[in-house]
């Protein structure tokens, strides 16, 4: 490493630690890996008790980590201006190329390496460690856990690199970005392409040198493409406004302006409405891949409608985060409406974005999934989305991104989601054994969850108004 590169890398590591410990408190931040370890270990025990095999657990784990990487990569959609709105009036070293003789791409490349190292140790490390008891029980050597950590880290990097590359492509030629997603999904689902060999998971299943090269080469290629193609997108002068999108926003009912304000904050910020489509598309693609792998590798025939409904509904969280990214907590107290009315306006905007987007993917799924199977998912999806809204608004208020590193909040939110998601997803997996009961459980649990979500959503306003008034 040349001296400036080392200087930048060390300064960025220091900056990351300071940022997390300042924002969320040193103890809470330090407890985060422990929380990940505990939650993951608990999840593994539940899955094992439900009869899920080790192979399926490891495959699912890789897919989930790829998905997490894709989500982390979408921070690129945010850009510097919105980062200020998410984190407050803050500046990071990655944006210092304006004043120094360093290129933006070099800073971004070092920033990515730093982020990969950071997540690999604090997030992927505990996940791999949580697998140790299962590995030992299954007679696998301890070295296997080390291999799992390596391939999961690779899977995370694959997700981040894919995200940045697609965003980079999308920012130059939007249709090319969408086309690439459609092509990969179609290739996997229809074309019989085995994507596993081109991922780090392929290296885990058969750890040979040739497989390692084939599995990690796309990680490197996508990382390089991501850095080369991605633009920060902080200038607004060239940003296009779409009259059709504006008309659609105005078509959403709104009595006090809050709904339209929230919708405009999404559709007029970097990535516009495409980021919602992209984010849920990623979720949909990973779910489709995971379900097809599960059917291929095990005797389980999951109910795809239920699984799509649950996972797309859970994906509503990202949209909630985008809707609230410009919402200043202090400013909401100065509005001439109650905080409950603000949450009601955001809820309307959330449903206006999440429901049609989810239905687009259900329509795509009709290509290979029977409509009768998807109809159950169409019932489950909005119910789960309503629950996710209520839970997020109640637990996290206007700062959902803080959940990620505030351990107690993260545990509360994760437990709340698991209480609803686990029975629904287990019902999807139990479809072959008892289809009617599985559908009944999925619809029943999601209906109860939606009712709880409505109550939590209504309580969020008074709760946060009282909190904000006390703290200000």
């Amino acid at each position, binding site marked *: 490493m040349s001296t*400036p590169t080392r200087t930048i890398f060390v300064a960025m590591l220091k900056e990351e630690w300071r*940022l997390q410990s300042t924002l969320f408190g040193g103890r809470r931040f330090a407890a985060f890996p422990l929380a990940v370890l505990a939650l993951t270990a608990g999840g593994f025990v539940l899955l094992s008790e439900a009869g899920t095999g080790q192979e399926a657990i490891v495959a699912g784990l890789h897919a989930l980590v790829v998905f997490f990487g894709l989500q982390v990569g979408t921070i690129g959609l945010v850009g510097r201006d919105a980062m200020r709105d998410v984190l407050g*009036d*803050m*500046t*990071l070293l990655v944006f210092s190329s304006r*004043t*120094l*003789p360093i290129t933006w791409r070099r800073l971004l490349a070092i920033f990515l390496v730093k982020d990969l190292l950071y997540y690999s140790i604090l997030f992927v490390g505990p996940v791999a460690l949580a697998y140790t008891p299962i590995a030992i029980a299954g007679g696998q050597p301890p070295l296997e856990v080390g291999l799992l950590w390596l391939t999961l880290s690779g899977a995370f990097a694959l997700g981040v690199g894919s995200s940045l590359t697609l965003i980079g492509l999308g920012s130059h030629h939007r249709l090319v970005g969408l086309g690439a997603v459609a092509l990969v999904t179609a290739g996997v689902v229809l074309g019989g392409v085995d994507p596993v060999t081109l991922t780090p998971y392929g290296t885990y299943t058969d750890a040979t040198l040739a497989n390692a090269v084939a599995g990690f080469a796309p990680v490197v290629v996508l990382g390089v493409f991501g850095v080369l193609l991605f633009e920060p997108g902080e200038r607004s002068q060239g940003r296009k406004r779409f009259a059709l999108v504006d008309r659609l926003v105005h078509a959403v009912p709104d009595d006090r302006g809050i709904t339209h304000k929230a919708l405009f904050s999404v559709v007029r910020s970097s990535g516009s409405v495409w980021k919602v489509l992209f984010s849920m598309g990623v979720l949909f693609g990973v779910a489709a891949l995971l379900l097809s792998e599960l059917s291929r590798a095990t005797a389980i025939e999951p109910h795809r409608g239920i699984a799509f409904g649950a996972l797309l509904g859970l994906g509503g969280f990202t949209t909630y985060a985008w809707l609230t990214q410009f919402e200043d907590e202090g400013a909401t107290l100065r509005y001439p409406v109650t905080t409950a009315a603000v949450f009601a306006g955001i809820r309307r905007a959330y449903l206006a974005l999440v429901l049609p987007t989810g239905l687009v993917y259900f329509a795509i799924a009709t290509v290979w999934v029977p409509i009768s199977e998807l109809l159950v998912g169409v019932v489950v999806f909005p119910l789960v989305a309503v629950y996710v809204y209520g839970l997020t608004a109640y637990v996290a208020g206007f700062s959902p991104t803080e959940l990620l590193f505030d351990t107690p909040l993260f545990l509360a939110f994760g437990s709340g989601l698991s209480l609803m998601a686990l029975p629904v997803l287990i019902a999807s997996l139990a479809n072959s054994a008892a289809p009617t009961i599985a559908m009944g459980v999925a619809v029943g649990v999601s209906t109860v969850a939606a009712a709880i979500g409505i109550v939590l959503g209504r309580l969020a306003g008074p709760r946060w108004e009282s909190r904000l008034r006390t703290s200000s």
Partner: protein
Amino acid sequence: MTAIETEGLTRRYGEVTALEDLSLTVDEGELFGLLGPNGSGKTTTIEILTGQLTPTSGSATVLSHDPVAEPLAVREAIGILPEREDPPSFLTPREYLQFVGDVRDLADVAGRIETWADRLSFSHKLDTLATDLSEGERQRVMLAQAFLHEPSLVFIDEPLVNLDPILQEEVKDHLQEYCDAGNTLFLSTHFVDVAEELCTDVAILREGELLATRDPRELAGEETLLEYFISTVGADPAEVTR
């Protein structure tokens, strides 16, 4: 000797023209001021000249370098203080300036930091996180990073914003001394009185077009630069910041 030269510099964003056919020359040792209402193309000009933005057409030379072909060579040679730029929030001023010195491969960075912190009155804040500094203190740190390597040309977008009156005077004195030593300053500012007091030459932009260049000391009779500026851009005096 010429420090900056532009020829037909134009920048368009789709149908919006931010800068139209800008041709100007800034000699070494000048304190050059770029004046204009909001959206007149001042920031776009600085971004092109410092290699941050590619022009749609036209050419420029900055200290004998082409900012389009050699953006890093330009940024190595000059100092820049962009508008609304803060030091990284989670580093202290000392750490950030050390970082700047290391990236620029400077000798005796620690000594330079002490000198500039003392000169701009933030020695007592050198080890405070930037996120805990006031706006004025952050502006002082950014001024220090622009001058840390003692460049012969510095671009500054609004040098006095957020500074208290005493420090404003000190900074003005420093800028004057800096140019007296043969260095060049390229200022973009809304403060017409500051430009009148400091600048050896000003250019007035409106809607991306260069309307006039003028030495404020050569204004006729009782006319102030503000009056000249208003009559040139045709603006309502109430819209112009004194």
